[in-house]
């Protein structure tokens, strides 16, 4: 029976958090297509939710969303709300879905990411921080979504590569994010 190593989880989450925080602050602002930039906070929340899930995934989603809100000029609480809900749904199975089913994880993330990005930018339009629907959909949502998807693919590749194959029928209970 696999025993969950919470210390390993925390170390893994901590390392991933630092990497994503640096990327969100230092690199993401300088890589843009149109007005869109990669949402590294969403990538971090998804990595935790799809690798661990449950309460930890939800908490990390909230904190990464809050980090995103504080580092931008948008309203505080918007991204944290979206990532809290997104992390809950992505991590609802509380298993290492990323290693079990990378393609399925990627597909799930693609859908969740699109919804999160779209809702965020529509909310910005509603609060008056964006000027037109065309600008929101084409110049912000679409490029942000594509860059975020690409970033997640890179992260997933490295996480899956490090964690290796999963033993056992269900694959549940092995939290390999700690191996980072």
């Amino acid at each position, binding site marked *: 029976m696999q025993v969950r190593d919470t210390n390993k989880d925390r170390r893994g989450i901590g390392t991933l958090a630092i990497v994503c925080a640096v990327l969100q*602050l230092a690199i993401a602002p300088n890589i843009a297509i149109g007005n869109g930039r990669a949402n590294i906070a969403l990538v971090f929340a998804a990595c935790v939710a799809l690798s661990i899930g449950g309460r930890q995934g939800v908490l990390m989603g909230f904190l990464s969303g809050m980090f995103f809100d504080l580092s931008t000029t948008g309203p*505080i609480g918007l991204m944290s709300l979206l990532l809290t809900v997104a992390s809950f749904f992505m991590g609802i199975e509380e298993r290492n879905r990323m290693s079990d089913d990378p393609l399925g994880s990627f597909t799930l993330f693609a859908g969740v990411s699109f919804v999160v990005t779209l809702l965020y930018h529509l909310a910005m339009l509603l609060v008056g921080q964006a000027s037109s629907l065309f600008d929101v959909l084409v110049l912000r949502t679409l490029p942000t979504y594509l860059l975020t998807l690409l970033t997640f693919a890179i992260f997933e590749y490295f996480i899956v590569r490090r964690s290796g194959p999963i033993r056992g029928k269900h694959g549940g209970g092995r939290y390999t994010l700690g191996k980072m």
Partner: protein
Amino acid sequence: MPRNLFGLNNGPAQFRRKNSDNGMRLALVLTALSLVLFTFSGRESGSGPLTTIRGGFQVITTPARVTGSFVMQPFQGLSNAFANLTADQETLSELKSENEQLTARNAELEEAEQTATRLQGLLNLQDTYDLQSTAARIISGSTDSWSSTVTIDKGSLSGIAVGMPVTDSAGVIGQTIEVSASSATVRLISDENSSVAAMVQSSRAQGMLNGSAEGSLQLTMVTSDKTVSVGDTIVTSGLGGIFPKGLPLGTVTNVTHNAGSSYLDIVVEPLVSTENYEEVLVVTSLTEDQQATADDISSADAQDSSSTSTSDDSTSSSTADASSE
């Protein structure tokens, strides 16, 4: 063991995980918290505790941002190139047009800057030598190949008269020789008919600065016993009451003493090329300080006397030699 929609085990309780709500309760709490923060954030509009927290966060994370910006500098050109690839034709045309306008404007501003510099030089000259003068602009050069003249845009209506000295920011350039109502002709010092009373600034040796057909300047009537060196500055002597005393004329480029001659052959280079004259000052009157003093006149007379006696002595000795033979 079967799982329900939310992944919870439906088996015996001892096999069920303690945190079996999959974080639902936590998600609800944090969702409510996020909504509250979002509401308060929207109400703050620029000042409040949340804004303060954000400000502190920005300060703490500034080093990371700066580092990232520095690291990404080499790659920013690539992203700009990509953005440029997607620019449409209208944008490119607008940018091209704006570039042309800015280039023309830049050329105008550079010209204005140079004009301002020249005018400032004229003002400095005017202040330095306390010149009673009128500013004018050169509007054309010589129309024939026999004379070195320029035409200025001021004439008798502006108080200009024949015989007035004309200077630019560097020094004397010539003298008015013809005046109409709204323009005047200035004979340059390089003209072969020009002759200006001058002296070597360092040794005070008096002479006449003459122009030539080829445009060079010669300082004549300087006796061979005077000290003149290459690089010496030649200035107006003020003798004759035409040119103010002490205005720069040129610098010595060659000094030759021919055997049997009482005078030095001195070649002078003007300070400014005639092609660069643009804004000038016409000296309309001289103050007492700007004219040659009685000492200057007697010094010049003494120099003339000594050169005359030297030539007389050499003539007498040659006559005596001829008689004795």
